[in-house]
């Protein structure tokens, strides 16, 4: 299921293609590995230093799609009954659509919109108001703030991250962003070596690749002009931080950062981290139920792992009356490394079931590919879940050290 084939196009952009004759729709996503986090705030473009802040990547996302040489591509796609959207994450920006008709024409429009920007001052001003309203919505999302606080704590380059901890930026920043600064960011980070194309559908591979190479042949290439930051080389740090907001309940977040062991493949590590997430914080884990019964945890609402070249991060957010005790208990549990065979087998079956359910939604699953690209080119973990043994899992678990952690909290301010 979901076995993607990687094809490198003539301009170097990788195409991940999932070809399935049974699909009626085609899913297309164009990903740029440039997001809203602090690691892209300072850069030197053609000898000139630039300093921007959160909100720029997101503003660009709006302008490229809404004010392209083809007009507003989302309106165009909608008129062809295609479902289209875009989002800006901390570490990438993604433009995507899915539908059944006019696919080739729409792929061309999408690529040209992103690769041939034409927005001007008028367009920047026209989009400003809507973006301000979107920023307000995000500023009220305390769950995201709690998780982003942990991300911010993990890396020193995030120290400049906007106080609202929103990938959208805030109203004030949005009001001040200029057209020139957006083009500077575009020229620095929308380079061909920083882009990925993902297509899933019933397609003729040869025809499609020719078509894509033709589109790019008529577009100027975007060569790298800045040194892309490698945040993965930053030293680990342990930091606790909290922000105070008027909320009805404290929202805590915990991030654990682990130095990646050698002699373990990325795929195996992903699997092991998914086991750990399930072991610790899945709502059907015995440990989760134990924490609830001890009044250490009310509920967990978000958890994920990230694996980069040097590090593994395990991040989750939760509501607890006693977050410090929760942290201590969770870390003790990790240190003991005492997962039994029956626990392991139960989790393995859960993970298989999760993968199978994901595959039932044939298009939302590939839409998550952007996140996975950060650490693996292997889309589906089903086969590895089926194959991994208890002995191998315990061997990898014993290589992991859980020394560096960070906590964030959106703290309740009594009304």
């Amino acid at each position, binding site marked *: 299921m979901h076995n993607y084939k990687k094809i490198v196009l003539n301009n170097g952009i990788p195409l991940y293609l999932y070809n399935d004759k*049974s*699909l*009626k*729709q085609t899913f297309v996503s164009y990903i740029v590995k440039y997001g809203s986090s602090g690691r892209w705030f300072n850069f030197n473009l053609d000898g000139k230093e630039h300093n921007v802040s959160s909100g720029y990547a997101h503003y660009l996302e709006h302008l490229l799609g809404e004010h392209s040489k083809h007009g*507003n591509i989302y*309106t165009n*796609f*909608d*008129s062809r*009954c295609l479902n*289209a959207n875009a989002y800006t994450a901390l570490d990438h920006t993604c433009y995507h659509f899915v*539908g*059944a008709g006019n696919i080739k024409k729409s792929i061309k429009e999408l690529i040209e919109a992103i690769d041939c920007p034409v927005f001007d001052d008028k367009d920047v001003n*026209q*989009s*400003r*108001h*809507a*973006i*301000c*309203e*979107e920023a*307000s*919505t995000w*500023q*009220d*999302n*305390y*769950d995201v703030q709690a998780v982003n606080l942990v991300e911010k704590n993990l890396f020193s380059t995030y120290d400049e991250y906007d106080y*609202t901890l929103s990938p959208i930026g805030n*109203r004030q920043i949005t009001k001040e962003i200029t057209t020139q600064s957006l083009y500077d960011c575009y020229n620095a980070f929308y380079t061909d070596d920083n882009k990925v194309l993902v297509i899933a559908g019933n397609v003729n591979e040869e025809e499609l690749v020719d078509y894509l190479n033709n589109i790019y042949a008529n577009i100027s290439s975007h060569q790298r002009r800045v040194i892309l930051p490698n945040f993965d080389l930053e030293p680990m740090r342990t930091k606790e931080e909290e922000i105070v*907001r*008027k*909320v*009805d*309940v404290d*929202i805590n977040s915990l991030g654990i950062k682990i130095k990646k062991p050698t002699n373990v493949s990325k795929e195996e590590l992903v699997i092991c981290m998914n086991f750990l997430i399930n072991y610790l914080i899945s709502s*059907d*884990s*015995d440990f989760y*139920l134990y924490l*609830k*019964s001890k*009044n250490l945890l*009310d*509920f967990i609402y978000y958890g994920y792992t990230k694996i980069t070249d040097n590090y593994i991060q395990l991040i989750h957010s939760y*509501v607890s009356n006693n977050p410090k005790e929760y942290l201590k208990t969770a870390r003790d549990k990790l240190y003991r490394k005492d997962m039994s065979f029956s626990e392991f*087998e*139960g989790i393995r*079956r*859960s993970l*298989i*079931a*999760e993968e*199978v*359910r994901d*595959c*039932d*939604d*044939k298009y939302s699953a590939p839409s998550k590919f952007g996140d996975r690209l950060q650490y693996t080119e292997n889309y589906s973990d089903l086969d590895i879940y089926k194959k991994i043994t208890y002995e191998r899992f315990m061997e990898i678990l014993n290589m992991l050290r859980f020394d560096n952690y960070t906590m964030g909290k959106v703290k309740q301010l009594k009304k």
Partner: protein
Amino acid sequence: MDLSRLINDNGVYLYQDDNFNTINIQLSFNGKVGNREDAVNYVLCKYMMQSNEIYPSINQKMKELYAMDLYFFPQKIGKTSSIIVSADLVSPSIVEDDYLAGAFDFIKNIILHPKFTDANLLETIKRSYISTLAHKLSNSNNKAKRLFLDNVFDDENNKYGCSIDLEYISSIINSITLDDIKEAYKNSINEQTFYRGMVFGNISKEQFDLFRKYIPYKNNGDVLDYASKCKIVEDDSEVLDHDANESILYVTYETDKIDEGLSKVLSSIFNGGNGLCHQILREKYGLVYSSYISIYCYKKAFVFTTKIDKNNKQKAMEAIKEIISIAQDKNKLIELLKFAKEYIKNEDYLLSEKKDYILDYLDDYIRGIPDNFNYNDFIKNIDSYTEEEIAQHMGTLKLKNVFMYKGDKNA
């Protein structure tokens, strides 16, 4: 979608589709209505998933059954309240393990043999429930929607106010006892209160028959009263929230009786990137980030929801009036209606690939609400909707309620 494939076995419906890897089962029971009853139903649902006479660890058993996703949840529609048992199973053909008999037996035992003796568990569930509500209210969007619904409908049975007032709802939750949930179980989850079942996905007829041996419930013939008699309250008011940044404007019109089919056509005209809301409020005036309409068929309510700058209420009101005047002009509706029909037909074509869509449509269809809406007939007759009909219907709109949730935080 081919609804002629539906098999009705005494109120339990089967729709086979081996394009999917899973089997979804839903069983619906009639529950009691009211603020306190809602809270009791919620606690009952959570409790049943954690304590049972047969299984020492429900959790472990679910994992053995390929992480069967089994849950109980309360559902309110109109004046009715239901308790739904939902199970999502991995198809045995995928995992190469014929475990279905064990899975069906498990579902049966979870329904029939709960164990209501653990006071500590009850306290844990209550505490978690209060935290969950508090967490929901940290989201201004949730808070605004609940405040709006309370303001706009004069419906005492469906007040959300209790869940906005944390102190009030906490006092209700904290007063729930083991006897309360025992009583609720006795009254709500049994053969007499069972009214509908649905089995969907990668399951054979033989496997369905096996399921029916374990779960032999039949529809007892009762028809639930979905219609609500509540009215739209005439009002123009604002709620100021010093803790929120965003502002949301809700503008509610009363319409003539509106059926599910017309509601779908109108939604396609007003919503989406080419819809009237987006085109006028965002593209023409750049006033909002998002805007859309919702239609509450039972309550004859047609609601515009827009996220706007708190100072732009008047401009948004003018733009909404402009939108309505366009929709009342049959000449301006020609292109919009043409597109709406295409969109709906296309959606139908794609329906067979989306499990959630199929489940929603089957749910509506089997439920037969409102006015026995039949999706197949609707698609067959989609071209019969005319500009005149839409314009005439839009001419019946009467402005009744303007409600603004005003975020007033100086971030």
